[in-house]
C-alpha cells in the first residue's frame, strides 16, 4: 500500500498529465529533492522557487488568474503566517470582482506535531485558515483520501488549501488506491527517487483510478452509539485507538468521524451523529483559544442543544506559543490517546 507522500505524488502526476496542472512549485519542490517530504519527486512540472513564501502565494494567485491551475507548496505551516493577507486576497478575488475572476489553485502545506519538530515544525493551521473566506480546506488522514482529495482539489474551481498531517506522510493506509501494485515495495521501486545521483532517474507511474471524492463529505471511521468523536488529520488515529480501548475497557461505543473537509464541512454528518449519541467530543491539535473545533461545537450547541445529554467538549492543543522539543513538552502540548480516553470517559459519565 502506498504511503501518504506517494499518494500525493501520484495524484500530482495525474494532475500534470490529465488535469492541466502546469506548475507544482515551492521551496525545494523541484529536482533534485522533490520536496522535504518527497511529495513532489518525479513530477515533471515541479520547480524550485526562491525562498519567499509571499512570492509563492502571489505567484500561485497570478498563475490561477492566467488559468494555469497551479499547485503551490509552503514547506511547513509554520512558515505560512507571513502570507495571510495574500491568502485572504486569493479568497476574495472572485467575490470582489463580482464573479469575474475565478481562482483555481491549490496550496499544500504540512501541519501539526508528532515528528519532534520543536516550535517551528509543529504548528497547526486550521484555526486561522478556516477563519478566512473563499477557500475550501481539506485534510486527509489516509493515503487513499490524500490521493482522492488532491485530485478533487485540483479539479475544484476554487482555491483549495490542502493540509498535510506531516506525521502521517510515511504511514500506509488499510485501503488501497485503485490500481496501485499489490506489493508496496514494487511501488517504491517505481516512484521513489533513488539515493545519490538522480539526474537520470525517471519514475514509472502505475495506472490509477480517480475515486472522484466529493469535497465536503465526512467519513464515519467507526460507527458507535454512546458518544461522537469528531476529528481529522493526525488525530483520527489517536481517536480510533482511544475508541478501541474504550470499547475493550469500558464497553463504551464511540463513533469516530473524520471530517476530511474543514470548509465547507459536512454539517449533516455531524448533526446526525450527535443527535444519535447525545454526546460529543471534538478533537484536534491546534491550540485551544479560538479553535476551529469551537466553531463545530458552537454549531452543535445551536442546532442539537436539545439532543445533548452532557456538555459537549473540546480536546485541543494547550494554549502555548509552540510545541517544545523535549518529549515531556510535546506530550503536554498536544492531545495524546490517553487524554482522549479520559475526556470521552468523562463526557460519557456526565448526565
Amino acid at each position, binding site marked *: 500500500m502506498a504511503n501518504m507522500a506517494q499518494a500525493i505524488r501520484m495524484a500530482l502526476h495525474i494532475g500534470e498529465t490529465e488535469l492541466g496542472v*502546469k*506548475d507544482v512549485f515551492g521551496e525545494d519542490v523541484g529536482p533534485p529533492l522533490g520536496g522535504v517530504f518527497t511529495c513532489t519527486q518525479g513530477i515533471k512540472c515541479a520547480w524550485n522557487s*526562491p525562498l*519567499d513564501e*509571499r*512570492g509563492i*502565494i*502571489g*505567484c*500561485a*494567485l*497570478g*498563475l*490561477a*488568474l*492566467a*488559468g*494555469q491551475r*497551479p499547485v503551490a507548496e509552503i514547506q511547513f505551516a509554520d512558515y505560512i503566517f507571513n502570507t495571510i*493577507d*495574500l491568502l485572504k*486576497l486569493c479568497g476574495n*478575488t*472572485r*467575490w*470582489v*470582482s*463580482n*464573479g*469575474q*475572476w*475565478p481562482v483555481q489553485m491549490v496550496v499544500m502545506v504540512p501541519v501539526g506535531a508528532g515528528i519532534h519538530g520543536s516550535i517551528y515544525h509543529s504548528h497547526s493551521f486550521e484555526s486561522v485558515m478556516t477563519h478566512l*473566506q*473563499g477557500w*475550501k480546506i481539506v485534510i486527509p488522514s489516509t493515503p487513499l483520501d490524500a490521493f482522492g482529495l488532491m485530485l478533487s482539489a485540483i479539479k475544484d*474551481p*476554487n482555491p483549495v488549501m490542502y493540509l498535510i498531517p506531516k506525521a502521517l506522510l510515511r504511514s500506509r493506509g488499510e485501503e488501497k488506491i485503485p490500481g496501485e501494485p499489490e506489493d508496496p515495495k514494487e511501488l517504491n521501486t517505481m516512484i521513489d527517487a533513488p539515493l545519490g545521483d538522480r539526474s537520470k532517474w525517471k519514475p514509472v507511474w502505475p495506472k490509477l483510478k480517480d475515486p472522484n471524492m466529493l469535497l*465536503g463529505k465526512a467519513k464515519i471511521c467507526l460507527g458507535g452509539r454512546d458518544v461522537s468523536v469528531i476529528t481529522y488529520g493526525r488525530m483520527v488515529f489517536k481517536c480510533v485507538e482511544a475508541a478501541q480501548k474504550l470499547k475493550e475497557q469500558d464497553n463504551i461505543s464511540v463513533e469516530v468521524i473524520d471530517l476530511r473537509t474543514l*470548509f*465547507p*464541512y459536512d*454539517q449533516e454528518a455531524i448533526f446526525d451523529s450527535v443527535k444519535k449519541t447525545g454526546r460529543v467530543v471534538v478533537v484536534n491539535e491546534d491550540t485551544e483559544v479560538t479553535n476551529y473545533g469551537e466553531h463545530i461545537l458552537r*454549531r452543535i450547541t445551536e442546532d442539537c442543544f436539545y439532543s445533548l445529554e452532557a456538555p459537549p467538549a473540546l480536546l485541543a492543543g494547550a494554549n502555548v506559543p509552540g510545541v517544545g522539543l523535549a518529549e515531556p513538552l510535546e506530550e503536554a502540548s498536544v492531545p495524546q490517546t490517553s487524554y482522549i480516553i479520559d475526556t470521552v470517559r468523562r463526557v460519557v459519565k456526565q448526565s
Partner: protein
Amino acid sequence: MPFSKEKQIKIHDLMVKARLLEERLIKMNKSGLGFFWIGGAGEEAFHVPLGMLIKKGEGLDYDFLHFHYRQSATLLTLGVEMIDVIRQMHNTAADPYSGGRNFVNHFAVKKWNVVNVTSPIEVQLATCIGTGVAHRRHGGEGITIVTGGDAGTAEGEFASALGWASRKDRELPILNIVTDNRYGISTPFAEVHCDRPIAERGRAFGIESATINGNDVAESYAAIEKAMAYVRKKRKPYLLEVKVSRLYGHSSASGANWVEGEVDGIVEFEKKLKNAKILGEDDFKKVREKYEQESIEAVKKVLKEPKPKPEVIFEHIFADRKDAEIPWPPWLKK
C-alpha cells in the same frame, strides 16, 4: 512630438476626459453621493499613453494588467465607460467591477486582463509574478504590467517582484511601473527612504531600468514604447520609475482639495498643443464641456439605479453559491 497630430488630439481628449471624470467623482464625494474617493488626477500624461500601448484582450496572448488605484486614465483609454466608474463611486448594483462592493477606481475587467485593483499596497507586486511566469511559458508578445506607488516600494513585495523576475535564464516579461508622486498618504518619500533613485533597485537585480517625467506626454509615450519593446521581445523585466503629480492630495480622507505647486500634465500638454497650433483654447474648452456634460448625465442616470441586494454578499464567494452558505446568518433571507 514623435507621433501624429491625430494621436496628440486623441491623447489630449482622453486626458481631459479622465480629469473631468475624477473631478466629478470628487464632487460626488463632497456632496455625499459616494463614501470615498481615491484616483488619478495628475497622472494622465503617463497613463493615457500607457493605455494606448497596451496589447488589449483576454488571455495570455495579451497583456495582463495589475494596476494601482490611480489609473482611471489607462482604463478610459482601454475603453471603459465613464458611467461605469460613476456606478462604482455610487456603489450601485450595476457597478461592473465589483457589484457595489469596492471603492471607486478599483477596476476588474476580465475581458481585458485587468486583474482586481487591490487596496492593500503592493500585493499586486506578488500576484504579477504568476502571470509573468505564465507569460514566459506562453511566449508571444503578451506581457505582464504592474503598477505601484513610490511609498509602496518599501514593502517586501517590491523586492520579491524584482527577484522573481530576474532569475537567471528564467527572466519574466514584466514591466514594473512605479508612479512616484513623492508621498505616501502624508509622509514624504524623502523622509522614509534613502536618496537614491528607485530605478537603482532594479539595476541591483540586473534589470533594465529608467526614470522619467510622467507629466510629459511625449517622454512618457517614448519611454513606454521603449520599455514595452524590450519586454515583449527580450521576455525580460523592465523597471520604469515615473515622476507624477498628486493634484488633489491622497484621497477624500485628506480632503481631496486642489494642491498648489504641483505640475499639471494637462496644462503642460495644452501649452505644447497650442504652440504647435494643433489645438487652441476653444478646442480645450469644447473637450472639457463635452465630458463635463457626459459626467453630469451619467450621475443623473446612476442616481436612479438600485443598490445591491443584501443577499448578494454570499454571491461569487465560490463558483457554487451553496458552498458559501455554511453557516447562514439569522437575519438574512435565503
